[in-house]
């Protein structure tokens, strides 16, 4: 099977932009409703005090920080993966990159709201920014939370640019095909794109620079998120493995999120001819590698704690391994390691359905992983008199769940306004065989065998 080309690409990929079905309004209404519920719950929390949550002495971080780390992790789907695939010139990446980069942008926006939601006085969140104030006080640059602020803002800016740059030629296509107000809006977004060789050259250069620049940023972001924990003298937090462990976990959950999004797009936007089993197969293999890497990190972290045998660390260790949190812990191991190994390791199961089931498991498992890093340690900190346990309350559960609705809403709106697959990159692939005969031929073969 060959990939569609030319005008068929335009027709297929621009269809959601020009034709609006009742399904779109239904989806926006449902997800918008969920987001509104979450926002109003947050207002309620800000008005009535943080006491409506389950946070208590001594477990001062719970669902919100878990969700923060989770969403920042999901954000590693896009930019990082698409940047790497771009740099190694993997031909099969073309239909995947944009939906991945969109996940990054939206997951970062959602993740970045959690530190504000979780603040005791969210209306003062701007004090994290170094602005010239009359009190002559700067933020404390020794605090990992300030590092977070800068890292996430850098990553958000970078990944939005990285998302936007390759859309410019597609915006121009939409501009040329539309009239009236739509033409004006897309004209502005296309920034005067005419498709001259000079423009193409500049675009390619800019994307190359962004692809190289965004990788260290992405790695540093989740390392710095891990510093929120590893910089504090809390049993099992204060460890050097957290940086790479978090980065690996982030990419792991990111790919899983991407696979779920791809499967949904494929189904709802009828992109069966673009998002091929080949893409799921390749990303499935990558997911399998990350599952093994994740297992390696967890094994290391656990074994070193166990062998070190420090009383305070061991208290937390046994609490997760066989105590209160054991059911969650073993669910996590099953979801993150056992399930992917079976579904992705055995070729017969590595189908689209298999990949999606494994991905859903991984998303659940990675959420649990963050919860299990944060809560058991805080509840078991040194002095037995101050041990405690945390249970979330409905407002926390509503707000944390509503962010999944927010993700879906942003994604639906994005897919409605932007071709979700990079049209010009697909078309460019038609002209590439002369330049990269090897990779394209292989890609065709793989596509044939799976289709």
């Amino acid at each position, binding site marked *: 099977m060959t990939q569609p080309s030319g005008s068929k690409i335009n027709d297929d990929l621009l269809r959601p932009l020009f034709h609006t079905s009742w399904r779109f309004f239904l989806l926006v209404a449902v997800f918008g409703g969920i987001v509104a519920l979450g926002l109003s719950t947050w207002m309620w929390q800000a008005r009535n005090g943080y*006491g409506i949550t389950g946070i208590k*002495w*001594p477990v001062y*971080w719970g669902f919100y920080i878990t969700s923060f780390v989770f969403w920042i992790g999901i954000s590693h789907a896009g930019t990082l993966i698409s940047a790497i695939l771009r740099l190694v010139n993997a031909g099969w990446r073309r239909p995947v990159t944009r939906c991945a980069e969109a996940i990054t942008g939206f997951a970062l926006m959602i993740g970045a709201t959690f530190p504000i939601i979780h*603040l*005791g*006085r969210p209306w003062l969140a701007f004090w994290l920014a170094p602005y010239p104030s009359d009190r002559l006080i700067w933020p404390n640059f*020794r*605090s990992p*939370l300030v590092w977070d602020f800068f890292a996430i803002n850098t990553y958000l800016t970078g990944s939005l640019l990285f998302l936007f740059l390759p859309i410019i030629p597609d915006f121009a296509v939409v501009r040329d095909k539309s009239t009236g107000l739509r033409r004006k809006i897309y004209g502005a977004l296309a920034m005067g794109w005419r498709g001259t060789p000079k423009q193409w050259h500049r675009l390619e250069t800019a994307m190359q620079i962004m692809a190289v620049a965004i990788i260290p940023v992405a790695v540093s972001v989740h390392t710095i998120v891990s510093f929120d924990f590893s910089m504090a003298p809390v049993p099992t937090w204060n460890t050097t493995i957290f940086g790479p462990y978090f980065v690996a976990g982030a990419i792991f959950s990111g790919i899983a999120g991407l696979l779920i999004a791809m499967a949904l797009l494929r189904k709802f936007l009828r992109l069966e001819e673009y998002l091929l089993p080949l893409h799921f197969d390749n990303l499935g293999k990558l997911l399998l590698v990350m599952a093994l890497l994740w297992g390696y990190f967890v094994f290391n972290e656990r074994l070193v704690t166990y062998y070190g045998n420090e009383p305070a660390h061991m208290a937390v260790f046994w609490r997760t391994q066989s105590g209160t949190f054991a059911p969650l812990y073993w669910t996590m191991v099953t979801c993150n390691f056992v399930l992917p190994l079976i579904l992705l390791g055995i070729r017969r199961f590595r189908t689209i359905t298999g990949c999606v089931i494994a991905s859903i498991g991984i998303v659940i498992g990675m959420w649990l992983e963050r919860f299990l890093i944060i809560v058991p340690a805080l509840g078991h900190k040194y002095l037995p008199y101050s041990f405690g346990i945390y249970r979330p309350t409905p407002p926390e559960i509503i707000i944390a769940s509503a962010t999944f609705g927010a993700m879906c809403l942003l994604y639906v709106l994005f897919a409605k306004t932007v071709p979700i697959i990079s049209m010009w990159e697909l078309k460019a692939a038609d002209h590439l065989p002369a330049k990269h005969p090897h990779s394209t031929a292989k890609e065709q073969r793989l596509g044939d065998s799976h289709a």
Partner: protein
Amino acid sequence: MARWGMAADLDRCNGCGACVVACHSENNISTVGDEQASRGRAKHWIRVERYWEGDFPDVRLKFRPVMCQQCDNAPCEPVCPTYASHHTEDGLNAQVYNRCIGTRYCANACPYNARFFDFFNPSWDKPLQLQLNPDVSLREVGVMEKCTFCVQRIRGAQLQARTEDRALRDGEIQPACVQGCAAKALVFGDLEDPESHVSRLARSPRGSKLLEDVGTQPAVTYLARATQV
């Protein structure tokens, strides 16, 4: 410059809890009500920890009053993004309520769990609202609070000494918990002055710091219990 410190003689502490009550009334610590207290929202800047040793019937009960240890190397300070938690020149871990945005990072970093979050705006079980201390600011919802070594009393005594043009006398400053302790288990003073009562106790062979191996260098010395009861 002084370096404020405290000594807690566990031989003298009988766990009566007078220090807790004195602290609450001195520092305007709001009572959160029994329902919220049962949910873990009670704020006790000083608490008396009870530990049992041995098996029945040879049980020994130990009390340990735990307040903010005013660490020299305090984990709560570097993690605060807004400098709400910072070190004063005389070695106190100050908490600037107006600067706090409520990330609660300091409380997580504190190995002693000596920091408390205000989940609601302050309120008191009647008639406690009638005895608020005008020297201590109230804390609004969403900030962290903790033991200050009764900084208002320290500053008051320093001011008094300066107006009278004399040096501070040892024992002149008494935080509320020290004043309230009938058994005289708690001693407060200047650790820079080698002759002060607290300095002599800090050098005692019975002395040790709480969670010394975490490396926080606390200003509170605990004198181990020597008597068998």
